[in-house]
């Protein structure tokens, strides 16, 4: 009896929910459902191609989630869209490339690590490149915060955003001076050979590498934020800066650590992007940064799980769009997702966890 009643009330609640929904949300749901059905049809038609594309999307999405986490961490704590974050990611890929080349400022430290190096050397090279890029980007991010954002802590929010845009252009031009205006190739250190025995579904060593780097980083981050004292302080500052300061939390240091974490993730992501795609360019941070920001908004800005989910979703959406709509339309698709989410669901899919909730008033 009781279970029956429970189901009845639940179904009634669902019906009430549908009745009270707005037309825009109904249209949004219908449109999403339509697109999903179209995708399913494609999936049934060519399951192998679809699965391969899905895997590529998830791997690219994992790289994006790491950048998205940087946006979401910073937004969660000081409500700033750190526009320079994407360019920090670009600097990360350049640092990684420089480490792998073995030559820093014209000073040859060791022979470049290339595809011909032995397997242990290649693994060591990749690990060092990752580590150096993470450290460099983390410190760079902290430095940017100190120089450009900290003096504006009490300034209008859009003034800080403009400063962030300025920093983004400065970093982009540093990249331009560093590696020039053309695409720079990354050494092909990780095999593009398929792991899976069948030829139909493709999952390469490269994809595995991305998973192997991303998952430990995510676990470490969630441990840091969830279980350490400093992580607790970060959550407290994100909730209420004044109250956090009152209970003895060093707010400025906590903000610096947030930027450090974001930068570390961006650095790792930059090196992985280079190794995964084989190229990098001085303005890669602009589009990748916007994609990642879209991911953060899609998941719910300030929400760490949301950033990862959003990143994976954006990765899959862009892979599907590459396959079924056309590569040149992908940016338009992603930016449309960004606009639609901001307009119709500014809280994101999993909910906004930043101090100022929601997009509208």
């Amino acid at each position: 009896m009781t279970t029956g009643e429970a189901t009845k009330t639940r179904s009634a609640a669902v019906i009430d929910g549908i009745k009270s929904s707005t037309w825009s949300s109904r249209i949004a749901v219908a449109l999403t459902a339509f697109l999903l059905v179209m995708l399913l049809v494609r999936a049934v038609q060519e399951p192998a191609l679809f699965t391969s594309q899905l895997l590529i999307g998830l791997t690219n999405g994992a790289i994006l989630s790491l950048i998205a986490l940087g946006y979401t961490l910073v937004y969660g704590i000081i409500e700033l869209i750190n526009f320079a974050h994407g360019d920090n990611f670009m600097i990360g890929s350049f640092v990684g490339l420089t480490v792998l080349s073995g030559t820093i400022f014209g000073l040859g430290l060791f022979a470049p690590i290339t595809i011909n190096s032995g397997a242990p050397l290649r693994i060591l090279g990749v690990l060092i490149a990752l580590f150096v890029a993470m450290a460099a980007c983390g410190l760079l991010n902290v430095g940017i915060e100190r120089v450009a954002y900290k003096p504006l802590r009490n300034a209008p929010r859009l003034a800080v955003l403009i400063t962030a845009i300025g920093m983004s252009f400065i970093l982009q031009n540093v990249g331009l001076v560093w590696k020039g205006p053309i695409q720079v190739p990354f050494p092909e250190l990780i095999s593009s050979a398929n792991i899976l025995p069948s030829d139909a579904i493709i999952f390469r060593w490269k994809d595995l590498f991305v998973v192997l780097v991303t998952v430990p980083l995510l676990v470490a981050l969630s441990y840091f934020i969830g279980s350490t004292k400093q992580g607790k302080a970060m959550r407290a500052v994100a909730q209420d800066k004044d109250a956090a300061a009152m209970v003895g939390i060093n707010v400025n240091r906590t903000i610096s650590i947030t930027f450090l974490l974001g930068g570390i993730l961006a650095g790792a992501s930059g090196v992985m992007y280079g190794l995964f795609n084989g190229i990098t360019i001085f303005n890669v941070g602009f589009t990748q940064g916007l994609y990642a920001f879209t991911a953060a908004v899609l998941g719910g800005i300030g929400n760490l799980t949301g950033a990862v989910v959003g990143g994976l979703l954006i990765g899959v959406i862009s892979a599907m769009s590459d396959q079924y709509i056309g590569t040149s339309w992908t940016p338009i698709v992603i930016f449309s997702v960004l606009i639609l989410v901001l307009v119709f669901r500014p809280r994101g899919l999993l909910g906004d966890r930043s101090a100022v909730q929601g997009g509208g008033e």
Partner: protein
Amino acid sequence: MERLRKFALPAILIVVAFLFPPINAFLESTVDVNLMYPAIIVAVYVMLALGLNIVVGFAGLLDLGFVAFYALGAYVVGWLASSHFRQVSISFGSTATSLTGGELPGIHLSFWLILIIAGAFTGLCGMIIGAPTLRLRGDYLAIVTLGFGEIIPRFFQNAGDLWGFNLTNGTIGIKAIDSPGFPFLPESMIAWQRFGTLDLNPWYYTILVLVLITVYVNIRLRDSKLGRAWISVREDETAAAAMGINPVTTKLWAYAMGAVFGGLAGAYYGAFIKNIFPTSFSFNISILILCMVILGGMGSIYGVILGAVALQGLNFYLLPQLNEWVHAMGDAVGSPALSGLDLPKYNFFLFGIILVLMMLLRPEGIIPNRQRAEELHDEDATTGDAMSGRARA
């Protein structure tokens, strides 16, 4: 003194602007410097900056995608004054004539009519884009405008083949756009009958008149009821709403007015440059225009004009000049790195620094608008997340 400031300075500036072509001709004959082309481009940017000033300066909305309206204006002129749509043949008051004497393919309307259409079209687009988005918080709005600013040029790039229909000719762009002109004028005024590439004076006077109209509209809007509504929404949206101002409509007007001037400038630019490509309308242009507004002073009309002139001067004159000096220095000390340096390529490095330094040191700009300066330095303000008042902590 106040009277002098109010009337004498603008009068002198206008007279100098109108006398610029003879001055330039004199300069060309004596020191061989022709500033006509840079002057026209500077004027286009003055117009764009004044358009953005309505959005950023008056209404306090950060628009990072202003280039979208510039691009739309340029494409309107491309569609309505070239042989792009070969399927049809429509001519009305255009300067374009068929070489073979047969029917001229494509749409060829009078440039003056197109200007009005472009302004109306971009204004409408501004309203369509703004209506659903202007409810958003300031920083989200900035990102949405950035999204539109990215989508529109990319759409033009891809729209060479929309289910078989060639809307924009893709990356090749629209070529051979008709020149503006007054075809009804007598043969003796050939330069004005059809604006040519040799005599730039008609081009100059056209953009000068457009700029003056923009300045006039800017001043009138600032001092109007709508202008005061913009200021109040910028300072405190909640209080403004409590006083009976509809914030969304008020912002929408600002956005649409800015779009109109962006579109007009784009239409003029398209006709002047004659060939338009989607790649000329990048995010960098949006930032360049924003940089002009911020350097000069948000909300200050003199300031914005100064900002546009200064930054384009930097682009056209100072950076190439500096480049030559650096090259000469590089040759002198025998450093190939210095003599091969291409400074103008790094102009956005400078713009980035300008944005950061202005925000850190003098957010109100070089020639500040007094009210704006007070808002930007008021640390005790409790509300508002437009570019005034304190961020909600």
